[in-house]
């Protein structure tokens, strides 16, 4: 009896302790630059042998066997067909004679690292996939599915032209941009689905470890490799596909691709990977 009381008292003090440290943390102002530094430091100290740019190769940097397989694979990458298709699509004019190049700065070449960006007119985050579909619609073409091959092919080509360029996401001096960033962060760390996982459960707490037969990728630089050819999917997948599949794998009903939540998430996740090179299109097991 006395023992039980003691435990209860311990729990109570613990709860009090939590409360006490609560307000100190709740006073958090949004500081993306500090977040980014802490985020990158977390990974570089968790994996002291890896260079910052190695993180964009995901699980291949975490596992020696996988790395060997990957080197072999990269000699003849499985995304090559998609890349070629993407290039052809990108350069083929729409029915009205215009092309994708007309919708983008620098004709769409070498600009992947600037996406997603915050559109101050719209007050929302605009991703590359969204911009591509808007470009299609503005030119009288039907939008592509966000998760399927056409969109992956296009983004694969655009990523390829930006390979090696450091991710460069800007947060303009606009409270809405900061809020979008913060919302993205909240989504990243929020547990959801019946399995009670957040994005961070796998990609912060356990990168490099196995989940069944697969090696988990680190959150740092994870989007730099998008889109990816996944052997598991035997096909290409976009960032949208990655997000929605992650959600359903933890038994959460996925949102629609390019819903605000996903756009904000992409904004946050890309921002904290600023400075890491674009490596897409990637190949993953």
């Amino acid at each position, binding site marked *: 009896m006395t023992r039980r009381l003691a435990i209860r008292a311990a729990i109570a003090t613990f709860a009090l302790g939590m409360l006490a440290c609560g307000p100190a*943390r*709740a006073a*958090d102002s949004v500081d993306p630059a*500090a*977040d980014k530094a*802490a*985020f990158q430091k*977390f990974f570089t100290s968790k994996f002291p042998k890896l260079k910052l740019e190695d993180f964009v190769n995901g699980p291949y940097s975490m596992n020696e066997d996988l790395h060997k397989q990957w080197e072999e694979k990269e000699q003849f990458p499985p995304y090559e067909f998609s890349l070629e298709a993407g290039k052809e699509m990108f350069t083929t004019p729409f029915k009205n004679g215009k092309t994708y190049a007309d919708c983008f700065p620098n004709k769409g070449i070498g600009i992947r690292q600037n996406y997603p960006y915050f559109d101050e007119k719209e007050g929302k985050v605009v991703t590359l996939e969204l911009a591509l579909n808007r470009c299609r619609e503005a030119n009288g073409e039907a939008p592509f599915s966000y998760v399927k091959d056409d969109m992956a092919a296009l983004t694969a080509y655009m990523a390829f032209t930006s390979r090696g360029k450091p991710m460069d996401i800007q947060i303009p001096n606009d409270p809405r941009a900061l809020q979008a960033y913060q919302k993205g*962060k*909240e989504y990243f*760390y*929020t*547990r*959801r*689905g*019946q399995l*009670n996982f*957040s994005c*961070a*459960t796998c990609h*912060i*707490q356990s990168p490099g470890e196995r989940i069944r037969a697969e090696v988990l990728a680190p959150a740092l630089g994870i989007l730099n490799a998008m889109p990816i050819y996944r052997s598991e999917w035997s096909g290409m997948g976009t960032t949208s596909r990655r997000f929605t599949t992650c959600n*359903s794998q933890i*038994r*959460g*009903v996925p*949102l629609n691709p390019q819903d605000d*939540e996903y756009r904000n998430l992409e904004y946050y996740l890309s921002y904290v990977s600023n400075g890491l090179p674009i490596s897409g299109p990637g190949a993953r097991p």
Partner: protein
Amino acid sequence: MSGAIRAIFAASALLLATASTALAASEADYKAAYAAAEAANKEAGALRNQWTTTASTLSAAKKAGDAGDFDTAVAQAKEAEALAKASIFQATSEKERWKDMEVR
């Protein structure tokens, strides 16, 4: 056999009896249970946190209900409601708790 154990047997027999009378569910029971589950799932949807298992349990309830198996339908609908309520609890508690996991 001590008295205590005999008492447990008696109690469980009683439980079984009440349980079996409760099992004879009607269509109205099913409709009420289903509506409650659906409402809870809708609330989870407003919180942007529905579970896939809620949806599949709901459709299992509907399937049983359409087939006239109201016992199963009610049981499934109650299960779905419990799942939906859990997802609501999760979404609500995560409003602050996500910060615990943040890298800072």
